[in-house]
């Protein structure tokens, strides 16, 4: 009897799994917990990656700006990096949040690939990431003039994402981007 009942265990396990997967369908893994939106960027006191100074939220003073969560262990970050450089070149202030990373490696990365960041917050323990509700890297937040978090993007930021979701805060940029795209087509 119990031998027979045991044969239903795999089925039961699968039913539970299906319920979970069904629930998963209605969740967006990239959406920001609603509670964070509209809040002021959390206070912090962390080292700056290049200078070693202690910085806090008041140092993120070029606004509106992007806060980009990155790490050298994150391979999508590498795909995203050239676009960040392009954005920085066209004048978007980008602050880095170097998340759960080794500062030495991080400095090496920036030396090798170029540094698009105004400042880089060293969050080696990930505590600021926890306050922000970081899901993984890369992630990019928009903070507006008043220092409020107004948008969050999970995953690689590229031109089409930026156009669709970020341009509202950087209207001047859209005109400036055209020549960049043109240069790309010219192969330069």
């Amino acid at each position, binding site marked *: 009897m119990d031998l027979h009942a045991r044969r239903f265990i795999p*089925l039961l396990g699968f039913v539970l799994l299906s319920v979970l997967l069904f629930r998963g369908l209605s969740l967006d893994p990239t959406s920001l917990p609603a509670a964070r939106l509209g809040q002021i960027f959390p206070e912090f006191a962390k080292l700056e990656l290049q200078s070693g100074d202690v910085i806090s939220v008041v140092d993120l003073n070029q606004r509106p700006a992007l806060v980009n969560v990155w790490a050298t262990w994150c391979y999508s970050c590498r795909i995203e990096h*050239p676009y960040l450089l392009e954005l920085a070149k066209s004048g978007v202030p980008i602050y880095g949040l170097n998340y759960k990373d080794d500062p030495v490696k991080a400095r090496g990365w920036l030396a090798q690939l170029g540094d698009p960041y105004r400042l880089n917050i060293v969050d080696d323990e990930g505590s600021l990431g926890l306050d922000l509700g970081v899901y*993984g890297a890369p992630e990019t937040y928009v903070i507006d003039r008043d220092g409020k978090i107004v948008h969050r993007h999970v995953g690689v930021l590229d031109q089409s994402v930026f156009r669709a979701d970020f341009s509202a805060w950087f209207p001047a940029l859209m005109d400036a981007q055209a020549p960049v795209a043109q240069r790309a087509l010219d192969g330069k």
Partner: protein
Amino acid sequence: MIPELGHISLIIAFVLAIGLTVIPFWGSFRTNVAAMNLAPSLAVGILVFTATAFGLLATSFLQDDFSVAVVAANSNSLLPPIFKFSALWGNHEGSLLLWVLILSTWMTAVAFLSRGLPLTMIARVLSVMGLIAVGFLAFSLLTSNPFERLLPNTPLDGSDLNPLLQDPGLIIHPPLLYMGYVGLSVPFAFAIAALIGGRLDASWARWSRPWTNVAWGFLTLGIMLGSWWAYYELGWGGWWFWDPVENASFMPWLMGTALVHSLAVTEKRGVFRSWTVLLAIFAFSLSLLGTFLVRSGVLTSVHAFAADPERGLFILVFLALVVGGSLLLYALRAPAVASRVEYNVISRESLLMVNNLVFTVAATIVLLGTLFPLVMDAFSLGKYSVGPPYFNAVFVPLMALLMPFMSIGPISRWRQDSPRRWLHELLVPAIAMAALAPLLSMMLFDFNLWVALAVLLAGWVTLGVLRDVWRRLAVGGSGGLQWQRLSPSFLGMTFAHIGFAAVVLGAVVVTQHSEEQDLRMTEGQSAELGGYRFEMTHISQEPGANYVADQATFVVSYDDKIIATLVPEKRRYLASGQVMTEAAIDAGILRDLYIALGEPIGERAWAVRLQYKPMVRWLWIGAFLIGFGALLTSLDRRYRVQVVSGQEPSPVKGQGLGFAR
């Protein structure tokens, strides 16, 4: 016109698949021979029409028909023809068509190569596979039609294939991987047919075994290519990332590994029958689950396809029907009596049980790690990501635990064995390796405990297997070597086990001894790494077919002898403006030298990453041996001589596989 014909072919294939699901299945219960005999022809019909649809879609790609939505989204007139062709499966809709094409190929292969099997069995197996084809064809036609048109607003040119996918490795990686994924549907179908017919015996295991081995071999090769591609194409020398999509292919592989071994026990000894059936169901279920995870947008991943909840729901319902249905069938029909065949704790059966446990636990751990973010999200406990540390922490000890058992396994005896005999067999290799391990690891690199341990375990496994080969060859004592005693299945096992040892060794060495350096270099400058000297001789710019490349030429030397000239590139693709790093690699059996360009820094200077990757090739050579070994086993004679009549679980018949002595 061409896309419409393709669409119609797909619909015809769908109708035929419904026929295949219903008619032979019905016939198998009414013993209607005519109905059952329809199965092979229907399978061929499905193959013909899916192949036609596939060919027509390929034509649209090659002819740059940008009125077809997938062509416009994934191709470009400047794309080299070979990539236009492979762009077909570089997207959700097209890769789904490839999935169905491969499924119908497997179906047809089963139909033609199983002539000796009882008709009811063939009919049911093909019907089950037909049902899977119905599901996937419906999925394609209803939610992801590859032939959808962009009319009247046809774009002038396509938006190009993702540059990451413009690579020869990506031409064959998905087809091989799908051969594996989809091939697991064959043992699944055999398991379901056997459960329905109530015939879970040794002949069932013997019929499923070659199919399972071949599918698993393809899966191995597919995963190997994926890892290799990531290594040279993503540009920073990593070879495994525990990304959800990688896990989606790795879980069926782990479960398949357990299945391959469990089937051996069921065939040879008639035990583990319910367990083997369950593994067959699990292995294919995990490959369906992988499809769900990759295509539903439930998890974030770099190489997941575009998210679409509607598609997700469709696969989930299909998954629930197929997996839920088969597990229900299992619960109702699996043999409830414990096997009558006895075996001792000290026996090959027990060792294979350890194999089964290790691989099942490993698959479960990967599943948990992959789904954990989803679980936490579902219960609103926050957003998480599970990284390599978790997987490495649980995976490495498991594999280390496995290896001692793996060295004993092939030399052990069925039913009953004695530890003394094992000691006698394996003591010499063990002592030899224990002495050699530190020596070898010191000779090649600086001493490192983990590497020494890996050399010890890998060497022990290899020597054990080779000793067995030697003894088999030399038996009889009459001098000459008895080559005919090495059956394909024995050789296959030998290759696969040696391959596994090579993978373990390669993984440990490359993890422990890799060196890398990030530098700013100008023309004429040089740098040293791992004893090698890298000199950057000049920088240039070269046009490619659909990109422009910045190139830096490096001359690599060792002890003042020039070894190689390497030319890493930085490409900017014209259509998308995306920038890609093309690493330059000097490959070698003991080490790879790897150069990737970063960003230009000022005039004529580049940020450069140099890497020294010892024994990284062993990973792929090893994985290749595993896959090759698995494919080799299917050539064994006893699979070609099919036994028609029902047989009792055959007792050890020895020399067929040559396990018994």
